């Protein structure tokens, strides 16, 4: 599987379906929401995979769990293909 079409830095909302990406940065304006995301395992450097897209929201897999989140929230999660993560 090639990673060529994962932009070096994109948001989770635009991440390709079914492929693991690495979270580089959370920049939600509300701090408590960023904290909640981190506590749920969606912290910087974690691997995440978007598996399904719904109506304005999506399902992701982090560790072994499935998490539903809306696209606006996913838009505040910056991700990158796993190889590029080393430089971040």
């Amino acid at each position, binding site marked *: 599987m090639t990673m060529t079409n994962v932009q070096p830095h994109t948001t989770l909302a635009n991440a390709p379906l079914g492929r693991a990406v690495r979270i580089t940065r959370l920049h939600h304006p509300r701090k408590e929401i960023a*904290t909640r995301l981190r506590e*749920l395992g969606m912290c910087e450097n*974690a691997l995440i995979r978007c598996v*399904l897209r*719904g*109506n304005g929201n999506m399902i992701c897999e982090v*560790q072994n769990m499935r998490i539903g*989140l*809306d696209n*606006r929230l996913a838009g505040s999660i910056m991700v990158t293909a796993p190889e590029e993560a080393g430089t971040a």
Partner: protein
Amino acid sequence: MTPPAAGSRTGLFRTVRKHPAGALKARTVALVGNPNCGKTTLFNALTGLRQRVGNYPGVTVEKKEGRLALQDGIQCTLIDLPGTYSLLASAPDEQIATDILLGRASHTARPDLVVCVVDACNIERSLYLVSQLLDRSVPLVIALNMVDAAERNGITVRLRVLERELGVRVVPTVASKRRGVEELKRVIGQGAGAAGKSRQWRLPEPVQRECDELIGLLDEHHQLKGPDAFDEAAALLATDTADLERMVRYDPVLRDHVRRDHQRLEFLGVDRRSVFVEARYQWIRTLCAEAVSQEPRNGDTLTHRIDRIVTHRVWGIVIFAGIMALLFQSIFTWAALPMAWIHDGFDALSLLLTRIIPPGDLRNLLVRGALGGVAAVVTFLPQIILLFLFIGVLEDSGYMARAAFIMDRVMGRVGLHGKSFIPLLSSFACAIPGIMATRTIENSKDRLATMLVAPLMSCSARLPVYTLLIAAFIPARSVLGIFTAAGLTLLSMYGLGLFAALGMAWLFKKTFLKSSVPVFLMELPEYKIPSIRSVLVQVAERAYSFLHRAGTIILGASILLWFLASYPRMDGALPAERLQHSYAGLAGRFIEPVIRPLGFDWKVGIGLVSSLLQREMFVSTMGTIYNIDNANDEGGQASLRDRMNSDRDPATGLPTFTALTAVCLMVYYVLAMQCLSTVAVMRRETNSWRWPAFQIAYMSALAYGVTFVVYRAGLWLGLGG
């Protein structure tokens, strides 16, 4: 590196606080853990109680207590708590859990031992909470639950490694099959709550240094020590520099110091916001690399395959609507036969009573008053059972969380998020658990909006009212082969309730409950086959409470109503006239001018008044007054619905009920408050009379207004006859 709290490491706080032998106060043991990891299932297995379980996060929203008998005859108090992901609570239900854990709750003492339930399929995330508990030197035992599911998913956990690294006992359990429960009891009995190894995770060197300095300052200026000081320091370092200005509760010296810390860390390129969580997870990952191994998965999981269909953009909604339609249709078709049996049973009973009791007031009171009212309500038991069976299956399969996911878009339109849909769905059973379930909503305005509209969802108490009226006045024509007009009418009543709830929520969120855009973030559990036992236990509980109400409140009210409807005596008058001139009739006629514009006459008025506090009472009232009304002295052969159908006003000769009145009545019951228990819960949850009063006011106005419009429109369309 200096430890956050000297005491916690030197062992001062490590030992379990032991009560002197024979002390009166029993030890309290608390169950904590992430949402949906099986805490309540374990609680039930340990105590033999039957608290609600379900396969979605946020089932338990309040503290529950039970007795735990340990092997050597020692009794403990076991507390089941709402799930939480961390000790930094963000929703009211999590707040309850963390307050009790940290000994901040006024009514509950800090637990002597904490059993942290860890989901074996999700160890990394669960260990986040565990590490927070370890930092606070909480006496801890870990129940590694769902090891069966972990095995199925190819996950192996090395218990010894976990025990060694955490310094606490780890007991594998399968709570749903009671496996490991005895062993857990034994470990609890040994008081094996070691406080474990605290603070094993390491912060990057500069952050730790700043932290230590801050802890020193917090102690100096605010007398804050131990883990509290560490948490406070961490929060101060992670906060926005601009926010410091407003944190006037801190000493200016301290704030200045924090400001300089922020600059230093920024200069070093440290992300202050993420470093604390990140450092914890770093440690967890290292630990899990040694303690947990997982076989690589090949192919899609069953859950994923189901989700592909069930949460599909189009099919998801279609499936949801289909499930609802099936529910309401089956309530009619499947319940018909057992309802007929119950009806026949009561008929036989009333016939028997008529035979053995001599004619007179006593016979009338028993057969017509008491039995008539109770029978009218109890007949609906099969429908109630079916409804709860359906809800139980939805809750325990994992579908509830998906319903929230699918409805997120719709809820977003009215300014709420998908999570608010779960309390609304629960309100199909009863508004009380629905209102309680709003405790999982973080934003207090969103939560209030959801609570305010939850009673608009049609609860099980309305079901008898709907079905009585539908059975009597809506023809049983079949529609599209599988549905009937009756089933569809019922569906539209539930639809109207949902529509009204969403509309009002939109209005509230647009006006006095404005808040920032809601954020949808929710864990979606794996699907599983619902546990027959736990579903049946819940159905039995509901059925029992329904029968209990019928046998107590409704029985009492029916007897009272019989007196009110039979006195003052008017010998020689026709039964219908007697009722009209009785006390009940008087009351009905008193409010008739108010309800006349809705198409209701005084007889309906009696029902409306008596059901003010409880909705099913409408049905028992009809059962009682139509029994008294019945000229035929030989028991209740004609069914209630036939009698209602053929009833005419003695004065005007007009039918009391028409199809239009029936529809208007149903609409009224969809929208009106008519439930004392809901008012009480609203009062408790909002801690004021203001919101329940507002709720009664707006719902009454809505009910009156909409019913009026429906009645007028119906008359205009010529449906009045």
